[in-house]
């Protein structure tokens, strides 16, 4: 199914970036999600540009994490969760028949709210993905991927002398960067981050934010955050979610200086949420 030819149902609120901007990496069309009988998302339309950081903001329970988890089908692991609508990666429906959720997740990686390193060594944490995907067979190749991933995640200098020690022994911020390095190691095209800094202190947060900005060169990033300063600092595009609706999506600067919808304005000025 070709997505590009479809007319975006929610175009009214989405000032399309396709005019001259970077190519569209992922598209969501009328995405509805139900947990049992409860509807969590009420028809989301969104375009995610390549090599940009898209921030999803909104009050708790507005569905931003749910939407994020649709993008790499992590919702599949939740009982009685039903997804309707279309989500496409490079024009290909990710819920389509010829896409396997497992392969999709190798292309669309994920970093979670709480750092969740495996109870293995730092080295094995990074090497886990490449090994299961058969990306590296020789030790040298694995070594190289591990080194490169840790370097890109800005963790190499801190851990190069203790790669054999358990990843759970690192500090919270280091653990989260380890998780980012682990996601990078499988060379994903898109990285989804679900409030990656909410469990971290301000210094570790600053580290991660810097890292996100650097990663933008090679990856497309979607980040859910409760911290509006963070959204303003790291993202180029921001989408505001409210009660299962995507209210507004625009350049981050526009959203924060000149929001169109009064709900957005209310939220970013701190009147609620």
């Amino acid at each position, binding site marked *: 199914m070709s997505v590009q030819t479809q007319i975006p149902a929610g175009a009214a609120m989405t000032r399309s970036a396709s005019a001259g901007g970077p190519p569209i990496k992922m598209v969501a069309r009328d995405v509805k999600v139900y947990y049992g009988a409860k509807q969590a998302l009420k028809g989301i339309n969104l375009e995610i540009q390549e090599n940009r950081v898209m921030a999803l903001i909104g009050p708790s329970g507005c569905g931003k994490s749910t939407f994020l988890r649709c993008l790499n089908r992590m919702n599949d692991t939740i009982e009685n969760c039903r997804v309707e609508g279309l989500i496409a990666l490079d024009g290909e429906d990710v819920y389509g028949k010829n896409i396997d959720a497992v392969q999709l997740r190798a292309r669309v990686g994920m970093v*979670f709210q709480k750092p969740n390193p495996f109870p293995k060594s730092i080295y094995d944490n990074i090497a886990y993905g490449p090994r299961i995907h058969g990306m590296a067979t020789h030790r040298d190749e694995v070594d190289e991927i591990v080194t490169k991933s840790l370097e890109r995640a800005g963790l190499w200098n801190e851990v190069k002398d203790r790669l054999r020690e358990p990843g759970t022994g690192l500090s919270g911020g280091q653990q989260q960067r380890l998780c980012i390095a*682990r996601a990078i190691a499988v060379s994903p095209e898109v990285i989804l981050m679900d409030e990656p800094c909410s469990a971290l202190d301000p210094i570790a947060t600053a580290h991660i934010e810097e890292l996100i900005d650097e990663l933008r060169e090679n990856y497309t990033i979607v980040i859910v955050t409760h911290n509006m300063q963070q959204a303003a600092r790291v993202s180029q595009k921001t989408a505001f979610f409210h009660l299962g609706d995507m209210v507004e999506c625009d350049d981050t600067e526009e959203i924060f200086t000149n929001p169109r919808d009064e709900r957005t304005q209310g939220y970013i000025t701190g009147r609620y949420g």
Partner: protein
Amino acid sequence: MQLTVLVLILALLTVIGFQMGRSRAAGSVGGRIVELHSVPSYHGFYVALWAGLPALLLFVLWNASEGWLVMQMTLAGLPDRLTQVNEQALNLLRADILNLAHGISTGRDSDPAVIAAAEQYARLRAIGSWSLLVIGTCVAMGGLLYARRQISPDLRARNRVERAVNIALVVCSLVAILTTVGIVLSLLFEAVRFFTVVSPIDFLFGLHWSPQTAIRADQVGSSGSFGAVPLFAGTMLITVIAMLVAVPVGLMAAIFMSEYANPNLRTWLKPILEILAGIPTVVYGFFAALTMAPFVRGVGQSLGLGVSSESALAAGIVMGVMIIPFVSSLSDDVINAVPQSLRDGSYGLGATKSETVRLVVLPAALPGIVAAIMLAVSRAIGETMIVVMAAGLTANLTANPLDAVTTVTTQIATLLVGDQEFDSPKTLSAFGLGLVLFVVTLTLNMVALRVVQKYREKYD
């Protein structure tokens, strides 16, 4: 009779004390409960405790000492020719007095002095129980009145009741600990008696087990030989077979239940598996002896192998089946305790379910699984009934699972069944075996607990 009455009186006084304390506490502040330090029911419990506990304590001490005291008084009244004898004769005398006092014939004509003493004894006991009834009731009443007088709005009844409950909890846990200590000590003393007869070296490293000792000096061929190595080897062999059955099956079942089965299936599958743990081991024994052993033998014969009718293999397989629920239930709990975030992390990297289970979940759960297996091993080593019924009694030193072997527990059971002289090394050797068994399972359990503790620290 007096005892029942006393218990009833105590129960009644306790209930009355509770009601009295509660209403008096409420009355002392004219119904304005908030002015009390403790709510009225604590005052009630306070009075009830004072009514019940001292009398109960008296009751216990009295019962513990009365028999001995009365016996001493009775013996003091007997002529010296009866009491100035050795310890054994004195014991016999005491038993005679007790029997006569309870109206049981001693089977021979008794000395009139002894009969008189028995009557004296019975009389003293009757007086004793009547006085216990009277004194106990008085103590209970006294406690009740004492506590009732104390009630005032400032009485810290809650704190005192809670302290009493606290002490009760400590006493209960002490009962469990002291019982264990008592069991260990009795085992230890008898084992030491055994080791004075048979050297521990011979016992632990001897290769020949044949505990039949001569009853008469002229008996032939039953000198008694207490080399326990064949028993240890037999136990090991059966345990290994049991674990070869239980660990793979139990672990796979646990993985299925915790990772693959949908919640509905799991809610009825797990209890069903745990029913296996509720089957009496005797029933497993039937199954092993009547079904499994002939089956193993039949299969062996059709393959041209000589299988004894009581084979280690049959007993081991059935024991393994018995242990499956231990392994599966404990492992299932451990696997469920692995945080979902680890699974999510693995799925988020594009791992499949089986990769996630094999490479992330199981390694994370491994210490707990190891602990579960160790507990299962100590259970297998200590298991008696299945091996008694299916493994046989011949102490073969063999590694062939098709032979009959015997285990430590089987030997203990057979050594102590029936009428036995309690000072022969044959009987005492059961305690030596028991001690070894105890030390081994204790060590295994301790190691398992240590592993579990280490595992707990991991995710916080």
